């Protein structure tokens, strides 16, 4: 293979951080499309311009998504990235793999693609970067044979993702991994066959630390929580304090609602349960002494999305507390009601958060059968332009 010069990219092999250039070069040693990717990228660095053409519609039979088509705008110069499509492969919940499965996927991708991966795409999928149209169907067939299916793309339910949850976190209030596996299986049709106005993402974080960034990056965020009082092991608290832990400055003063108190006489930590907003700070600071409560479930947030079109949104409270136990019937019913209403009323390319903003929270709540609650708002409205239904208004003489 002729060595192409890449002086700008070579700079990025210096320094301590693992270099993506080294990764691509390693793939390029045995794969022509990875070599051309490197060459095209060097040209992009030189000219500060991207060389991928707009759009691309490719796929596998039976599915409307899962593959993102991509073509080089300079196919004569970089013939091996003329077609450079991406597979989104649904990742195992919590990104837990065995070496054996990863070897199998790598072997498939060496055979059909560039050998380059993105572990993982920001939605969670295992991304296989770069293959030809011709290879799509056989590669997909090999992947499914190996036990992997494609993830979502387009105006569909996207691949669900979660934090590691109960697999190895003592703060997990819900089984985030089981939830997304169960929902992924339940919503296969919605994932593979785009049927909605735009994309719809569900992410599950097992506690309010939100390690899956669900509140910012999913239309429907499931955030584990509890509704009794957090558990305190006073002996462990004392042990920490005796060991020099500055409980006053590092925990008590940092509590956002001043729900905590350190009784230095009795050497006891006290909590006013109804003031606690489950921010996790004290538990994070004293994980051996403080634990999540016993009555566990989740808070659902709706509407999280990136800026386009109406501005970025962090999901806001839709359901303050819901039990999340298999088979998650109540949750699935709610998802169906939300997506039905959205599919009926949403404009083309309108995220559910934007639709709620356009049609009003009250219309949305009524459609999905939820009562308005104070927890849904940060503050009541500051203007008097309130709509009343005709039947709510008595006749005035």
């Amino acid at each position: 293979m002729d060595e192409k010069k890449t002086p700008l990219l070579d700079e990025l092999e210096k320094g301590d951080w693992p270099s993506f250039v080294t990764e691509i070069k390693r793939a390029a040693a045995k794969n022509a499309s990875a070599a051309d990717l490197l060459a095209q990228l060097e040209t992009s660095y030189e000219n500060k311009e991207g060389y991928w053409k707009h759009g691309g519609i490719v796929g596998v039979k039976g599915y409307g998504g899962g593959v993102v088509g991509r073509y080089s705008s300079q196919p004569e110069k970089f013939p091996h990235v003329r077609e450079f499509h991406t597979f989104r492969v649904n990742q195992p919940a919590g990104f837990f793999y065995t070496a054996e499965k990863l070897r199998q996927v790598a072997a498939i991708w060496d055979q059909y693609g560039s050998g380059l991966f993105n572990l993982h795409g920001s939605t969670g999928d295992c991304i296989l970067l770069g293959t030809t149209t011709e290879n799509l169907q056989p590669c997909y067939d090999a992947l499914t044979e190996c036990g992997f299916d494609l993830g979502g793309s387009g105006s569909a339910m996207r691949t669900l993702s979660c934090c590691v949850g109960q697999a190895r976190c003592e703060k997990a209030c819900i089984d985030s991994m089981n939830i997304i596996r169960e929902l992924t299986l339940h919503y296969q049709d919605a994932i593979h066959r785009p049927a909605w106005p735009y994309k719809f993402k569900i992410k599950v974080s097992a506690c309010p630390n939100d390690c899956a960034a669900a509140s910012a990056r999913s239309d429907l965020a499931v955030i584990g929580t509890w509704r009794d009082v957090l558990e305190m092991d006073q002996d462990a608290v004392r042990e920490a304090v005796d060991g020099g832990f500055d409980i006053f400055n590092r925990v008590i003063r940092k509590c956002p609602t001043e729900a905590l108190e350190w009784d230095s006489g009795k050497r006891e930590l006290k909590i006013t349960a109804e003031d606690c907003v489950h921010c996790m700070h004290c538990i994070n600071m004293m994980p051996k002494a403080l634990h999540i409560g016993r009555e566990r479930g989740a808070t659902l947030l709706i509407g999280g999305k990136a800026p386009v079109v109406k501005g970025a949104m962090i999901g806001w409270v839709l359901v303050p507390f819901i039990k999340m136990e298999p088979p998650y019937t109540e949750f699935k019913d709610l998802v169906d009601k939300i997506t039905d209403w959205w599919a009926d009323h949403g404009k083309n390319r309108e995220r559910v958060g934007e639709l709620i903003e356009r049609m009003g929270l009250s219309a949305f709540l009524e459609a999905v059968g939820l009562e308005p609650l104070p927890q849904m708002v940060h503050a009541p409205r500051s203007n008097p332009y309130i709509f009343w239904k005709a039947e709510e208004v008595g006749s005035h003489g």
Partner: protein
Amino acid sequence: MSNVQIKGAAVELDEDGFLVDPANWSEDVVAFFATQEEVGELTENHWKVIHYLRDYFQKFGVAPMIRKLCKDTGFTLKEIYEMFPSGPAKGACKLAGLPKPTGCV
């Protein structure tokens, strides 16, 4: 981009096999795309979807949303995929000669 011969006429297609010039659309083009997208034999139902897509596009200048397509034609999404295995966008819209769907696909 590529040029293909369809019943003796040269037709220009983009990389994804969509028509570059919608004016080139004809029933022969549909038959050609049908083999490309593994549609099989074109039935009355296929033509119903194709004509609906063309009419909608001519009227509104965009492809209909999938919900609308299903509602107006009376086919479920499942039936659409049975007719057009690569789906309403890559399958049906291509056969109908509509421009390639864009956006975050």
